[in-house]
């Protein structure tokens, strides 16, 4: 339905051609962006993934300028950013939850803890299930990895396919993200002594490091105000 409004053709044969050209161009752009996102989701290889992603994004924008009906740029950004955000969060927390005695985790996570967030340094690997022992931290990890981030990944994929359920589920999981930000921050503020005593960059460090995870706050206003008709059942 939406493509008709964008289509510049008068008859149906042209419309079909326009549709298949658009789909092909979108797929070509998505292939670059998916490859980029896979690399960016691994964290350490992110700098190799970013150019691939940006190239795909440019292909998409140019195709839209050329008159093809492409996914809106902001939907593309939200979808892929949510995937990257979920992947990075899940990776860090999965390391802390299940791989807390690996050398990489004991350098990366406790090193990060010593610099930015004492919750990941204080009595680390002393709790019976290992990893961070700060009050409440383990409960957040267990609740968020399987419930929030998995649902959020699925919703972002649905959104990128321009599905109605993707938009709706991303709204639901972004609201969960709002609860996470407020709850997690309040917990940190209450137990601020554990979080910030003896760390290298107390308060400022954590905020500068973590503020970039505010994806849900930037996504929600868009998801609530976009014309829902552009998403298909």
């Amino acid at each position, binding site marked *: 339905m939406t493509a008709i409004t964008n289509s510049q053709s008068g008859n149906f044969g042209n419309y079909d051609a326009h549709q298949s050209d658009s789909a092909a161009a979108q797929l070509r752009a998505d292939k670059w962006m998916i490859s980029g996102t896979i690399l960016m989701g691994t964290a350490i290889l992110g700098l190799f993934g970013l150019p691939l992603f940006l190239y795909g994004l440019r292909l998409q924008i140019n195709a839209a300028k050329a008159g093809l009906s492409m996914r*809106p740029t902001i939907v593309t950004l939200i979808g892929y950013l949510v995937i990257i955000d979920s992947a990075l969060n899940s990776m860090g927390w999965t390391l802390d939850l299940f791989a807390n005695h*690996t050398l990489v985790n004991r350098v990366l996570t406790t090193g990060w803890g010593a610099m930015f967030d004492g919750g990941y340094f204080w009595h680390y*690997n*002393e709790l019976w299930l290992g990893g961070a022992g700060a009050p409440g931290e383990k409960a957040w990890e267990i609740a968020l990895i399987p419930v929030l981030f998995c649902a959020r990944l699925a919703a972002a994929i649905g959104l990128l396919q321009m599905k109605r359920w993707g938009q709706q589920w991303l709204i639901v999981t972004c609201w969960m993200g709002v609860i996470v930000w407020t709850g997690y921050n309040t917990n940190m503020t209450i137990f601020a002594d554990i979080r910030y005593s003896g760390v290298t960059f107390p308060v400022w460090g954590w905020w500068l490091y973590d503020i970039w995870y505010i994806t849900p706050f930037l996504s929600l206003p868009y998801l609530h105000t976009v014309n829902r008709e552009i998403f298909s059942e």
Partner: protein
Amino acid sequence: MNASNEKDLPLGTTAHYANMHKWLQRGLFVCLVCLVFEAALSFPLIAMWMGWPTLTLTEVCHEMEKVRFADDSRECIVPYPLFGPAEAKGQKTAQDTWGIQPRPHYKRIGYRDLVKFRDERLAREAAGARLRAERDVALKAGLSAAQPQQ
């Protein structure tokens, strides 16, 4: 809403929200770039802060445990046995002021401080060993001087 305006707007964006959507898109782009840089550089930069490559990653792990549990004899077991008990379970050396909001007392780790901590500890241990050796020599000499020679 007039159609001529709508033409230039992205799909799904009405004129009413055009400005908001533009700024949201900019914010999202900034977040994405920053997240990617941060995630990619975290491990190498933290490792360097902590003393790599002067210290190996295993040594960094040792030194952080010594700081965390205020105990020079602590070492990271690498590789850690699968399904073993938590490494620091039951430790008694960490320094805290206990209470409803516990307060840790470990040393702050500044840029490449772990290298300094290690060098200082090695120097201390060497000085201790030298002192013990001198005392042993002195003791032996004292003993032989005290005993009549036969």
